[in-house]
């Protein structure tokens, strides 16, 4: 807990990492100025891209005592404004799940290579990044906690599968490797509450360590303060749950 007589400082900058297939991609990396050991958090950006909101979100974790990194998942399609790149990626059908997993694992390994890493890592994402967070928690070894914020299309019908997304995340549930926190809005259409319920049943079936919270009077993206879907009460409570969850599993 921050006290007013504490020193606080942070470094936040763009770095290069070797992502999926060794491809060089940029990542936004923020960490507190300290030589003390730090746990890490990988942030998976949302559909609107590697944007200002995600840079702020990354710095927020640094402020709370984590080495935090957010890779640019859209870099292989070039550079431009985050919005232009997001629209280009949308027209291409999204980024391949395998590529995202490679980039997320590379980000975690980057943090792990640092001399003051504790070797404990969390992963978090919102919107499409929430779906990819669940995939990462199932497919990548080394994460100690995962937070899926309103990730849509964890449950996918066969006709919704694409070459980029060939397997529904829910089908990986038996492989979930770490505790999971899920934060959802009751008025969300993606994922709708009935799909969250199907996901929860699958987690129960495989006896997984998870906790889901479904907020009333909230829909998709209820923590986005710059969007009309922002819901102050749910957003404040959700952030408290995220920090409590990560502190328990990554700092304990």
């Amino acid at each position, binding site marked *: 807990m921050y006290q007013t007589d504490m020193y606080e400082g942070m470094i936040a900058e763009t770095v290069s990492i070797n992502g999926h297939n060794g491809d060089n991609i940029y990542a936004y990396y923020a960490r507190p100025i300290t030589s003390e050991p730090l746990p890490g958090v990988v942030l998976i950006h949302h*559909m*609107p891209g590697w944007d200002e909101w995600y840079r702020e979100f990354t710095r927020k974790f640094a402020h709370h005592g984590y080495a935090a990194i957010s890779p640019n998942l859209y870099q292989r*399609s*070039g*550079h*431009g*404004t985050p*919005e*232009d*790149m*997001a*629209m*280009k*990626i*949308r*027209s291409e*059908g*999204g980024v391949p799940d395998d590529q995202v997993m490679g980039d997320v694992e590379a980000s975690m390994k980057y943090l792990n290579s640092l001399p003051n890493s504790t070797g404990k890592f969390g992963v978090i994402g919102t*919107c*499409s990044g929430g779906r990819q967070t669940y995939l990462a928690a199932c497919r990548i070894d080394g994460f100690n906690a995962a937070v899926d914020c309103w990730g*849509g*299309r964890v449950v996918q019908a066969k006709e*919704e599968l*694409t070459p980029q*997304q060939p397997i529904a995340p829910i089908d990986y549930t038996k492989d979930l490797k770490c505790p999971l926190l899920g934060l959802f809005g009751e008025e969300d*259409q*993606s994922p709708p509450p009935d799909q969250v319920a199907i996901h929860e049943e699958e987690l129960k079936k495989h006896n997984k360590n998870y906790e889901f919270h479904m907020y009333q009077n909230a*829909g*998709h*993206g209820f923590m986005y303060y710059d*969007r*009309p*879907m922002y819901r102050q009460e749910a957003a404040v409570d959700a952030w408290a749950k995220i920090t409590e969850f990560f502190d328990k599993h990554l700092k304990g």
Partner: protein
Amino acid sequence: MCTMVVESTKITGSGKGTNSWFPIQEVNVSYDHPFHAPMEYTVNLDFTNESMGPSARVVVELSARSAEELIGTIREALRRGEKAIAQGK
């Protein structure tokens, strides 16, 4: 990318971007989250020219009802325009 619903087609025409007019070659029509419109989901018309880079695009985000009204309005303008042109010949 939460719905992943997008339809694309090649088109011929021009669009006016931030700086100037440019030829447009493709339109991507998605029903997904908007960047600016104050709604959770919108019909997004993304007119592009990929050969000119990612910034060569004109984007409109419409409510579903507005998109339906636009379809009808385009059809009516086409009908009347083609009729007027045919009568002028």
